[in-house]
């Protein structure tokens, strides 16, 4: 694999090429600019690595030979079409549950706990099987949208690698034996007042679990509860403590903010409030016409993130220099007592003054957000700046902490390790976390852990930590057990299970109840009794209230009230962070992976295969560097380097990321798992191996050296690429020269010329055909995608995968451009190599009215529907791939192999029963979620009415946090989609081909500050 065309990209040449275009060009990535063979193949061929053309070993049978030999068997194989349907059994209920109508899904509200915080979800259940996660419209952190982690969590539920049995010292144990051990430990600690009893959890916001743990601490006064979340919010908490002297929860009201400054914060895709923030943010810049207004976003960041790409002004800056910039901003706004520390960051001269004027002009409607990786001082500065701008109580809200027991978690883990070292720990109960993998190596958690006489681990997987514990108890997934959690604003909601534990898993509630001597207590009763005891409603009204909380998915009135902070911000206490701007040396930034987070989703195939934003890498993590740094260090993509930091080293492949800050390397955590399961074990490198406990996020002094080895990375950056310039044969067409796949303007330009993005009239004409136009008299389905709202968060990709039973193909198959996701997020860069603007474009089947694919199918497996859908009939498809070859948008996907797992029983439960599970040799593609269209159409006909606007939502639309995707009937002039398509920003992709796509785009707008020169 690694021998294949390995010409390191010549960055100098690429730079020259970009300069010669005078910045007019949109480019998809470095490979395209360098004109690599791989990229050229991708442009010309739907499947660049045709199996027939792959080099073969001498003496091996060629594809042709195999075909010849197989012709006889093929003739007989034809007879297989005549097989009888197998005789099936049909198994009805004995006593049917009242609410189940076979064939109709039920929807239940629940809550997904993630990083300690709750996100409201609605789960679709087919005959008791949860199959799909959606956002809960009634939950403040969701408003109906769900992020990619929530979408993918249903696959974790059915993961065949989940731990299934109690493990005792490496052997299969039993729950009853464990009960005896637990009781013994309890008796011992009752006698010694809990001395030596330690409980380690991740961040806990669950009111019930916290209450239980407090009861444990009361019963065992010498016991201790430690918390450690590897990608937690220590900096946020400590920042608040710096500013206010106490732990305070901060949340933002982006629906009130006109000018936003992000200090290395990827707030649209990261953190407990991200889904809500993305919605509020995009609502504030939704365009209906030239009179519409937009908020303005300034982002200072090192690595290119979705938030950075959405920004109107993005400043590329090393993470360690952000504090100095924050200080200059604070001083510029007149915050008292702030000292300028470190070298002045290298910022364009007009940038900060213009920013300051903009912020000051929007006092009370501006907002400064500090990133979770930034040190506490930057968070303190953000609080001081927001205070100085009068934003507190308007765009910034302070409340009591959402975490049940806020603390400095790194210190908490250190204390635990110190106690173990001192021999004070006799019983360690680890609830849910995986510290053996995630703890900073300088704490040497692994070897310390072995000193604890009794180690008990509760987890979804038999993972690294489980292996080192005496007892491992399989944990119940959140879809399997009761619980509760609080959202970013304190709103509490109940975790309602959808299915009984598949493997007899236990919840943390049950394990803690054991410590309290309540063996056999049911999680439902524990949670319910806690809320009964809260007396939110009168006791006789509780049953009804409880039912309504479960139905709604939120407990009303539990959001924390704004907390008055009389003391104001103690700006003077904000001493410089640990890392002064040491500009001479390389910086390293650690971040949770955008797909598999801190490693907890490492065994989730959907997330592993999901192309990460901008790099479009799948199945790996890398050391991200800027083009300039790569040149300086003589690095190229796929070079394996040794990263030496804080006395430790790890080997990592390099990937050059345009827009990354210079002299800085970003690595993502969560990979290099040693015991994750069949999917996740051994994928990527373990960045935790060099992550020190004192600077867990950002540090300087990284040393990097080439090893001379290479490692093959798989990125979908150039897969399914559309030619942006005219193809040679189309030279007669003027418009083919510049096809405008991505159309962008500033707000000012848009106001001057509202139809800047419009397609030429002659291309829009419906008369470019010799045949009479087909009359679409009934419904005519269409989608409008607002590129001005899209933030490229990838939630739609996973939503589509989950809804449509799309299979995972693995790294080698992705390398051959055989990735199966029906929906892809294309990235286009514009401008300079070092500091480009980046734009995202969601591309799925365009459902062309003049579909090129339909004409070439020899068996009529892809045909046109009277409602304008371009249908793909799997059972008719014989796999010629002609359709895909003829698709200019490259949105068709072919099952080269039997990618769907047809044999693992646990995965049967996962599948959407209303979508065919495709087999080998079959073409597939986006259907606009035909199963949802048909279900609603039938429902409407049963009720003798037309389908209402907004009644049918596609899976991508439903989960989109920014509501960028709108589906509907374009024949109804009052429908949302028809109105959107009527906007002057509406344009089609490749209209010069006269395909008349039903999916159209609304052009992207930016709202730059006129005082800042680009």
């Amino acid at each position, binding site marked *: 694999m690694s021998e294949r065309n390995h010409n390191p990209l010549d960055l100098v040449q690429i730079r020259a090429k970009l300069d010669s275009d005078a910045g007019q060009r949109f480019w998809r990535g470095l490979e395209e600019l360098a004109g690599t063979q791989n990229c050229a193949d991708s442009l010309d061929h739907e499947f660049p690595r045709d199996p027939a053309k792959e080099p073969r070993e001498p003496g091996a049978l060629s594809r042709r030979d195999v075909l010849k030999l197989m012709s006889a068997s093929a003739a007989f194989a034809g007879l297989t079409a005549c097989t*009888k349907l197998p005789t099936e*059994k049909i198994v*009805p209920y004995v006593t049917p549950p009242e609410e189940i109508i076979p064939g109709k899904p039920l929807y239940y509200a629940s809550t997904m706990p993630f990083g300690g915080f709750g996100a409201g979800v609605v789960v679709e259940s087919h005959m008791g099987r949860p199959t799909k996660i959606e956002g809960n419209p009634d939950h403040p952190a969701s408003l109906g949208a769900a992020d990619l982690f929530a979408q993918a969590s249903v696959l974790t539920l059915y993961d065949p690698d989940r731990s299934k049995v109690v493990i005792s010292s490496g052997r299969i144990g039993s729950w009853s034996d464990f009960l005896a051990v637990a009781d013994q430990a309890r008796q011992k600690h009752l006698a010694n007042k809990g001395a030596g009893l330690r409980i380690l959890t991740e961040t806990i916001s669950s009111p019930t679990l916290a209450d239980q743990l407090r009861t444990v601490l009361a019963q065992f006064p010498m016991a201790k509860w430690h918390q450690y979340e590897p990608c937690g919010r220590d900096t946020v908490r400590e920042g608040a403590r710096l500013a206010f002297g106490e732990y305070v929860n901060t949340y933002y009201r982006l629906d009130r903010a006109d000018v936003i400054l992000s200090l290395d914060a990827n707030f649209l895709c990261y953190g407990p409030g991200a889904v809500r923030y993305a919605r509020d943010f995009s609502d504030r810049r939704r365009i209906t016409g030239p009179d519409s207004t937009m908020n303005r976003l300034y982002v200072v960041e090192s690595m290119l993130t979705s938030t950075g790409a959405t920004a109107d002004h993005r400043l590329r800056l090393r993470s360690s220099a952000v504090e100095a910039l924050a200080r200059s901003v604070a001083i510029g706004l007149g915050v008292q007592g702030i000292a300028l520390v470190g070298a002045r960051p290298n910022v364009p001269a007009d940038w900060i003054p213009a920013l300051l004027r903009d912020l000051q002009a929007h006092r009370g409607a501006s907002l400064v957000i500090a990133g979770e990786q930034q040190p506490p001082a930057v968070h303190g500065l953000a609080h001081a700046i927001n205070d100085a701008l009068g934003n507190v109580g308007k765009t910034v809200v302070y409340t009591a902490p959402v975490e049940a027991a806020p603390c400095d978690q790194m210190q908490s883990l250190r204390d635990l390790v110190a106690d173990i070292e001192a021999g004070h720990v006799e019983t360690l109960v680890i609830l849910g976390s995986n510290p053996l993998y995630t703890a900073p190596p300088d704490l040497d958690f692994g070897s310390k852990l072995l000193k604890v006489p009794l180690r008990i681990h509760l987890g979804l997987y038999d993972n690294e930590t489980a292996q080192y514990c005496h007892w491992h108890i399989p944990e119940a997934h959140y879809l399997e057990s009761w619980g509760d959690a609080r959202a970013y604003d304190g709103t509490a909601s109940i975790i309602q299970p959808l299915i009984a534990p598949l493997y007899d898993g236990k919840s943390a509630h049950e394990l803690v109840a054991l410590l309290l001597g309540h063996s056999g207590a049911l999680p439902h009763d524990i949670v319910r009794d806690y809320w009964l005891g809260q007396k939110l409603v009168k006791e006789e009204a509780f049953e009804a209230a409880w039912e309504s909380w479960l139905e709604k998915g939120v407990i009303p009135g539990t959001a924390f009230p704004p907390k008055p902070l009389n003391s104001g911000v103690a700006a003077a206490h904000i001493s410089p962070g640990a890392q002064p701007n040491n500009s001479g040396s390389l910086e390293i930034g650690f971040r949770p992976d955008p797909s598999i987070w801190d490693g907890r989703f490492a065994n989730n195939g959907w997330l592993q295969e999901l192309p990460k934003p901008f790099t479009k890498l799948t199945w790996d993590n890398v050391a991200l560097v800027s083009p300039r740094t790569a040149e300086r260090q003589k690095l190229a993509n796929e070079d394996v380097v040794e990263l030496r930091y804080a006395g430790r080293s790890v080997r990592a492949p390099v990937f050059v990321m345009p827009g990354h800050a210079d002299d800085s390397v970003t690595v993502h955590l969560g990979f290099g798992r040693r015991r994750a399961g069949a999917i996740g074990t051994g994928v990527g490198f373990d960045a935790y191996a060099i992550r020190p406990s004192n600077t867990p996020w950002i540090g300087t002094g990284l040393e990097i050296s080439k090893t001379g080895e290479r490692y093959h990375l798989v990125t979908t950056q150039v897969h399914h690429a559309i030619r942006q310039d005219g193809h040679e044969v189309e030279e007669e067409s003027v418009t083919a020269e510049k096809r405008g796949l991505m159309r962008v303007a500033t707000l000012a330009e848009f106001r001057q010329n509202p139809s800047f993005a419009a397609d030429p009239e002659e291309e829009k004409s419906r008369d470019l055909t010799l045949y009479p136009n087909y009359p679409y008299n009934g419904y005519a389905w269409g989608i409008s995608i607002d590129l001005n709202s899209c933030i490229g968060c990838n939630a739609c990709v996973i939503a589509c995968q989950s809804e449509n039973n799309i299979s995972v193909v693995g790294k080698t198959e992705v390398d051959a451009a055989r990735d199966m996701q029906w929906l892809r997020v294309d990235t286009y860069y514009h401008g300079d190599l070092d500091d480009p603007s980046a734009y995202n474009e969601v591309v799925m089947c365009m459902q062309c009215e003049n579909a090129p694919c339909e004409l070439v199918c020899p068996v009529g497996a892809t045909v046109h*529907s009277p409602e304008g*859908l371009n*249908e793909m009939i799997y059972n008719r498809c014989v796999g010629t791939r002609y359709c895909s070859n003829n698709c200019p948008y490259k949105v068709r996907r072919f099952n080269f192999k039997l990618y769907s797992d047809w044999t693992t029983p646990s995965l049967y439960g996962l599948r959407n029963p209303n979508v065919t599970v495709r087999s080998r040799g079959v073409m597939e593609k986006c259907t606009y979620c035909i199963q949802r269209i*048909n279900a609603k159409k039938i429902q409407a006909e049963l009720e003798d009415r037309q389908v209402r606007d907004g009644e049918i939502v596609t899976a991508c639309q439903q989960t989109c946090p920014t509501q960028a995707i709108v589906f509907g009937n374009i024949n109804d002039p009052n429908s949302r989609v028809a109105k959107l398509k009527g906007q002057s920003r509406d344009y089609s992709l490749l209209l010069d081909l006269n395909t008349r796509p039903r999916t159209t785009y609304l052009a992207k707008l930016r709202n730059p500050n006129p005082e800042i020169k680009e």
Partner: protein
Amino acid sequence: MAQIFHRSTNTLSRLSIYGAVFIMAALSWVAWQVEQSAYFTDVNVAREQPIPFSHEHHAAQLGIDCRYCHTSVEQSSFAGIPATHTCMSCHSQMWVKSAMLEPVRASYSSGESIEWTRVNALPDFVYFNHSIHVKKGIGCTTCHGPIGAMPITWRAESLYMRWCINCHNHPELYVRRRADVFKALYTPPSNQLELGRELVKEYKIQPPHQITDCYTCHR
């Protein structure tokens, strides 16, 4: 050296060469017949069931409405197979000692479902919806045959796609009044074509090009 082939083989070879067309036609005819046969389609083949349930007795003689057991037929894609509980709503009172009903009582007391053999099955890539057919005036017997005359149940139609398409192309030949949909024995009136055309309009049955669209059933 002796001839390997006898003279008569010449005739045979000539016959097979000149008769190729006929032989192929005959083979095709045989294949066609096999495909149509009960062996392939299971049409008119009574299936063995754990309990010899008689639709003739329950639906026709006793007059129990189809929907008493097939409860979801008007709301869902799936008509529903009655739970043991449904059987026991009568059979806890009558025929309580019947040996034939022993599996029902066993199921009810043990909580183990009765495993029926499926009679009418479609391939997994076909998404049939009962509720919309019932709503549009397609009676049970149109597809399930004279169910009121079946002492044990068999498949009445091949359920092949061309059979489905036939009705989707000419619904007026099969549609009946909604009041008649659940009749266990039904003979179309002599003026079916006239009535059918009227009902197609009244029930807003979509035109053939809509309902023969592939996505109507496949997805």
